[in-house]
């Protein structure tokens, strides 16, 4: 059975439209034939295949989209060469028409907000083209004013974009993206300082980005791994203590949908009896993996960061209770009644910080919780 057309149509339609466009322009030749052949391949496979993964996989293996796009580019390029004629005046007129068309669509917002900062530069290009200058003078001015580089994406707008990305990263206290963003800005400024017109070479900027991402990848992997593991330790202590409370039988942690009373009882017993062994196992792993002990968690840079960012969801009272639970959570042990009473008192309203997951303003000083 073929893949439903509601899935394949949105994939194939852009290619159908491109072929229609080329045919309407009256273009012919081997490139247009190639476009037809590749589109035919997409249409045929859609009928012969019943699995979307297999379909897209086969198209990727056959480089179908790539071959179609290459042929489309060649067909349009050949047509443009023919229509340009070759005189300077015709070349200038055609170049200007392309810039004016882009300017119109940018102004109308058809190309999205990200291109809007380019509008003044396109206006300048059109102004130069309309100034009466010859085609070579127009091209030279583009070079000398750095307009070609702006269009390649390394003008001041690129720096603005980097700053904007950094702003978003800071607003969400995303440590990895903040580190990346700060290093990219420094790299941009260093390259700009050495570059003509203060506009870094696009390749130099790309290489800087690759190197920064490569440098930071292991640090981020470690940071994430550390956070995930102390999060699990904290949750394990919360679950263990809560399993002894009066609210446990009504809590979805032990009463998943459809469970019987016997299931709930057994679930609670499991957490009470296995929780300490599991906790100590994971604590030992944490120690072995990262050379970090229990007490070091609360002053570790990852904890301080996540706490300040309000991603440690527990309230300070609950965090203090977690720490008080730690020494009692031993295989065969039970928490003292006093701790159970505190858990019942905090649950549910004071378990979590009221502003959890609401990032604080950027610049808020990093804070070690006073527990």
């Amino acid at each position, binding site marked *: 059975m073929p893949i439903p057309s509601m899935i394949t149509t949105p994939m194939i339609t852009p290619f159908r439209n491109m072929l229609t466009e080329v045919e309407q322009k009256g273009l012919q030749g081997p490139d247009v034939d190639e476009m037809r052949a590749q589109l035919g391949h997409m249409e045929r496979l859609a009928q012969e295949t019943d699995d979307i993964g297999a379909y897209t996989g*086969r198209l990727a293996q056959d480089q179908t989209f790539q071959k179609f796009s*290459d042929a489309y580019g060649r067909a349009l390029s050949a047509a443009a060469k023919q229509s340009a004629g070759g005189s300077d005046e015709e070349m200038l007129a055609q170049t200007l028409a392309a810039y004016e068309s882009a300017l119109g669509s940018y102004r109308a917002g058809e190309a999205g907000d990200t291109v809007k900062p380019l509008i003044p530069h396109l206006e300048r290009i059109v102004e130069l083209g309309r100034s009466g200058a*010859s085609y070579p*003078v127009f091209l*030279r001015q583009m*070079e000398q004013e750095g307009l070609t580089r702006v269009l390649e994406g390394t003008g001041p707008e690129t720096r603005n974009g980097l700053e904007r990305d950094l702003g978003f990263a800071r607003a969400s206290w995303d440590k990895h993206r903040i580190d990346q963003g700060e290093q990219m800005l420094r790299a941009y400024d260093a390259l700009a300082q050495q*570059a003509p017109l203060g506009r870094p070479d696009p390749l130099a900027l790309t*290489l800087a980005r690759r190197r920064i991402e490569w440098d930071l990848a292991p640090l981020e992997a470690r940071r994430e791994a550390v956070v995930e593991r102390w999060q699990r330790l904290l949750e394990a202590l919360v679950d263990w203590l809560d399993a002894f409370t009066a609210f446990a039988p009504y809590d979805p942690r032990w009463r998943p949908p459809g469970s019987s009373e016997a299931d709930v009882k057994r679930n609670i017993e499991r957490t009470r009896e*296995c929780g300490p062994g*599991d906790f100590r196992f994971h604590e030992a792993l944490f120690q072995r993996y990262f050379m970090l002990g229990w007490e070091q968690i609360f002053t570790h840079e990852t904890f301080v960061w996540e706490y300040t960012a309000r991603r440690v969801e527990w309230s300070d009272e609950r965090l203090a209770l977690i720490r008080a639970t730690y020494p009692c959570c031993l295989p065969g042990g039970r928490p003292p009644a006093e701790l159970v009473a505190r858990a019942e008192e905090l649950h549910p309203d004071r378990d979590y910080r009221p502003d959890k997951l609401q990032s604080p303003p950027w610049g808020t000083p990093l804070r070690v919780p006073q527990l």
Partner: protein
Amino acid sequence: MEQRHQEYVDYYRARLARAEANAALYPHTVEAERALFEAISTAPDLEGFRERERAGQLSLRCAIARIRDVERAEADLYLELEETVRARPYLEVLRLLDESPPRTVEDLTTLVSSTHDRFNREITRDETLRDDFWGEWKVLEDIECDEQAEVPERWRDERGRSVAAERERGALHWRERIADVRKFVPDYEPDWQLLWEMRHRRRIPLADKVVARRIADHRRYVGVE
């Protein structure tokens, strides 16, 4: 020299200056732009320049030189970072440029884009296992915990069944995963030994002996051992 000719000389001089400003990154481009500039600045007139340009394919040589510089710089960076698989498409473009230089700019564009597209599958082949292995690491910890944590005897049987079920899920998921990857990379065969290559190893932030143990755990989890 007539005015229009002089204007073109000035334009090609500006292009050369731009390339020279980054000569370390663009050595071939500088050379090709200089050839173009010399051709126009010493031509008797524009028609003479056009003949030289056509005969020597000077504009195409500029385009090829720029691609050569870009691909070389990318390849060098990846090789320096020991990202040998990610360096391959760039090295392959450079090899193809030497072996059969494109005759048109369109052919050049096709050569670059189709080569990178083809090698994307090599990158998938190389990096899929790293992502899967690291992505399933915590499941391996949980299995180990179920097997080894100090818990009362009465829970051992249940935990053993849970581990067996988890392993069954792991093997099933793995078969589906391999089938999915093979839709894009038909001859994909995961090779755990590759995880020791620096490009992968550096992204797994734990000691060698821990990684070695987890590799064995992972192979068992997915049912290949």
